[in-house]
């Protein structure tokens, strides 16, 4: 375990969980910003994917490279070296970003599965940020549209804080907030939207019910740029949604 600066010992901490397939600088940057805005410790958790290592040991395993679509044999050693390399990059990125905002941080590598992160004792945090694989290599236009943020679950102060943090980020002056409140009876019958001024942002509000949300996510997981989801979500639903999303997810108490 590596740490930077002193641990403020705060109860509220930000946990960034990433594996080799989902790690990105954008997600690290988001986690650091979250920790800075809440003045809490940032804990990085790099997960060496247990499933990957398990499959790698099989005689039928090989890798199809994303850049060339060619096949190459996989070995345990090779995968472990790759994972260590990505873990080191993850830690270096975390260190660089955290130091820039003077955020206390620590970093650790564990073996497991991202979906099990909630059950890990080390993963207790007020804000857990999951890095999700973005949609492969599709380019992003230089002129981004309004940032699309999914807010799922009952509002809590932490949820609100996470949303505030996102809206304060540069380039997020325009935002599209999609609310999907699990406790809301029946949700709304159809997509409704309205424009409001939220803080200094020009915000378009959309409300979806669960079905509508699942329908949208099944069409395109990268429909959102961020997702803020309550930890109190049903675990099965949560994993299902996490599996469909192609954006950083902030899991809040």
């Amino acid at each position: 375990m590596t740490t930077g600066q002193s641990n403020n010992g705060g109860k509220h901490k930000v946990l960034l969980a990433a594996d080799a397939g989902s790690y990105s600088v954008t997600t690290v940057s988001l986690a650091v910003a979250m920790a800075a805005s809440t003045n809490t410790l940032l804990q990085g958790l790099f997960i060496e994917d247990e499933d990957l290592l398990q499959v790698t040991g099989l005689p039928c395993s090989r890798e199809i490279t994303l850049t060339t679509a060619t096949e190459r044999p996989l070995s345990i050693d090779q995968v472990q070296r790759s994972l260590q390399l990505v873990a080191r990059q993850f830690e270096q990125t975390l260190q660089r970003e955290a130091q820039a905002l003077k955020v206390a941080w620590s970093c650790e590598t564990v073996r497991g599965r991202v979906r099990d992160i909630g059950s890990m004792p080390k993963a207790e945090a007020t804000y857990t940020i999951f890095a999700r694989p973005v949609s492969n290599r599709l380019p992003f236009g230089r002129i981004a549209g309004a940032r699309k943020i999914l807010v799922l679950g009952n509002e809590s102060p932490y949820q609100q804080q996470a949303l505030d943090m996102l809206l304060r980020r540069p380039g997020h002056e325009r935002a599209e907030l999609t609310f999907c409140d699990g406790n809301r009876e029946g949700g709304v019958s159809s997509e409704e939207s309205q424009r409001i001024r939220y803080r200094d942002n020009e915000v378009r509000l959309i409300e979806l019910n669960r079905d509508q949300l699942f329908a949208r996510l099944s069409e395109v997981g990268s429909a959102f740029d961020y997702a803020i989801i309550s930890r109190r979500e049903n675990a099965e639903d949560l994993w299902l949604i996490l599996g469909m999303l192609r954006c950083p997810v902030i899991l809040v108490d």
Partner: protein
Amino acid sequence: MIAGGDTVSAIGILESVAVGGPGISPILLIQVRFPVGLMRETEPMSKKIPSLKHTALYTTCDLKWLDFTTTQETEPLEQPLGQERALEAIEFAVDIEQQGFNLFVVGDPGLGKQELVQQILSQRALDTDSRWDWCYVNNFSNPQKPRVLRLPPGMGQKLRLDMESLVEDLLTSLPSSFQSDEYRNRRQEIEQELRERQEKAFRNLDREAEEKGIIVIRTPGGYTMGPMADGKPLDQQQFAKLSAEERQHIEELIAELQQDLQAIIRDIPLVEREHHQRVKALNQEITRLTVEQLIAWMENSYRNQPQIMEYLSEVKENAIKNVDAFLPAEGTREADNIASRVAEFHAYSINVIVDNSDSEGPAIVFEDNPSYQSLIGRVEYVSQMGTLITDFTLIKPGALHRANGGFLVLDAHKLLTHGFAWEGLKRALKSRELKIQSLEQMLSLVNTVSLEPEAIPIDVKLILTGEPRLYQLLRTYDHEFDQLFKVSADFARSTRRDAGSVQQYARMVSALQRDRGARPLDKASVGRVIEEASRTAGDGERLSLRLDDMRDLLSEADYWAGKGDREVIELADIELAIAKRQHRQDQYRELLQEQVLRGIRLIDTEGARVAQVNALSVLEAAGYRFGQASRITATARLGRSGIVDIEREAKLGGEIHSKGVMILSSYLAGRYASDQPLPLAASLAFEQSYGMVDGDSASAAELCALLSAIGEVPLRQSLAVTGSINQLGEIQAVGGVNEKIEGFFELCDARGLSGDQGVIIPAANRAHLMLHKDVREAVKEGEFDVYPVERVEEVMQLLSGLPPGAVNSRGNYPRKSFNYRIQKRIEKLQKLQRQVSKSAGNKKS
């Protein structure tokens, strides 16, 4: 007395006489015998040769001609004095519009050539039709070859400002267009559609794999697959427990899925390409709308200018094509630094190389530094990351650009001393177009890529000013010169001095005085200025037209008047200015005179010497001319080599000097040995002369030295001689007579005037005398003489104190004449020659 170039010496009677003695073979001698009557009329007779009175040494300005108290009362002269011919030529050249009628203004420095040209050009009608603004703009299809725009006066700057505004507007409007909801929505639609397509493909693969009991897992570099059970991948033990058929089946399933996965991944670049093309098409659509709207008002404003319309059309297409350049970089605010960003858009700049916004009348350009580049223009470079780069904004105009449609005035000497400037100028004039090309390119010295700006058609009237010598050289050696300069304006150095010209000169002095802001001059000082103009002209009957000299004199006199707290420049101020100027420049003359006085340079001013004459020459040091005496000596002995010019032999004699010596040789033979060979070996030298000697003004003195050497006649050293001779013995006018007389006078004066001293000058130079007051006073007091002479016999008479004598019927001169002595010596030499020849003949037999 022979006068006026009479041909008497060629008219004679040939008769043969036999000379010889016992035992001597008779020798046939040819002798010219002149008719006695004619000889008596034409030979110089013994008579006293009068010197000039002091009043003849200076032409005073008649103040009655000046009808004013001070120059303030006179009307300044507007037209230049004495330059009517040049004026007419300039006006003709300026007005005629045919090609090749460029003008060469010929004249010595200081005559006011450029001032007159400027005056005439500025008085021309305000014809602005010939003026255009010239701009270089980017050639969007080939930036190496910038295009040129010809626009009405003032439109260049307007277009430049409009283009700057357009860029500002584009920088403001385009980002706004790209931030509009419409654009964002349409772009997100594209991106979402493509993402959906890709995600769907992966998701379908996931679903299919799951149905087949296969799990797809991300690796750091791609994907891998494996069999699964209960949502978890099988480990090695579980896999090992599978039957061979099951393992084979799994292999086959993975292979199938792998092909699908590879197909999806291979499709990614195509999706990216499609994304790029669709976004690009969208961007261009959005840009076109904005750009067309912004350019529309410019097109409306410049609709009568086809060149601009064509240019704007290219700007429009280029802006649409390069819209990204107008969008703010990621993470910056678009409103930031728009003004500074405008400068980045060089491609849309307008390089106004000729701006006639505030100009009236035709262009009149005086280029003081006519180098190739300053005439033709140049392409500059800037250093960027260690590399020299350029573009059309770095094209700099030359004088020809600025003068296009008007007049370019250049100093020919400066032009010719700048390498390749003359050739470049001629090429532009002949081709009537101006192509900016560096010297390196022109001479093929470099092969680097540079700009090739579009040529500009030119219509320039070129006016060169230069000295007559330069004009003649160009006419002689440049075969294109006559085609390009069909008009010459010849500036007069001086003008006749009479009542009318004196009055005009006074008005010119008034104009110069006012132009300089100097004090007015009183009548006497103007008179003195006019006298000084005659002195400068070297002619009492003419007035110098060198305006520079006059300006300087006025400025200096004004200074001294100021020192004396006078409101008006008086005679004393002019005299003081002249004296002070002379004093400032007089050091070298004093040094030379000191050397004479100390006996270092040998010049006698008293006594008599054989074969030695004081000649006079003019030296010029830093523009200051002064006269000095030089000793000429001669030797004469038996021989056949004739007259040896030592200066010429030592290669210190100029061509004109050599010619003078040849003329005197011819005179000598014709005069004293026309019927017998002249067995003479003589030599002539300028003593203590270590530089070049040229001119023939000493030929009379050289002849006298030679005659003295032959006849062994002592010559007075109290006299100095100047004048050239012709073959008939006539004394011809020389230059610098005033300086020469004054030079000898100052030497004599320094040693103490004896009353016997003086200078012999050609009679034809009498009109040129404008001698210094000191000389005139000395002449008036009888302490110094100036003798005008017409023939060499008069010079010899003055120098030897002997008359020339008239030849009698037997061809002999009177005993007490110098000619007698010369004749006898020549006869003696001839006799000796015969003896030598006889002795040599005997030895041979």
